[in-house]
């Protein structure tokens, strides 16, 4: 096959730099986790 093979080569993001990966994962999972809390805040402020 003409695709690159090996660890991290079949992912849609880079795992070359662990600190960049840490920031990306924090943003990805952190933003998703905060959504329900932001919705509650939004609903309370709306009244």
């Amino acid at each position, binding site marked *: 096959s003409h695709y690159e093979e090996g660890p991290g080569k079949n992912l849609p993001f880079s795992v070359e730099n662990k600190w960049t990966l*840490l*920031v990306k994962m*924090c943003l990805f999972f*952190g933003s998703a986790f*905060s959504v329900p809390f932001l919705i*509650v*805040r939004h609903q*309370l402020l709306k*009244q």
Partner: protein
Amino acid sequence: VHSMPPEEELGIMEKAIGLTFCFVSLFLPAGWILSHLEDYKRPE
């Protein structure tokens, strides 16, 4: 398909920093909102 040993072993400091950032990014926004819940409620 076979796995290999890690290219570089993580030090205790790197693990601590990584875990701290993971937990802070998860719980800081949630904790901020939960601790200010009363401020978001309008008095009738």
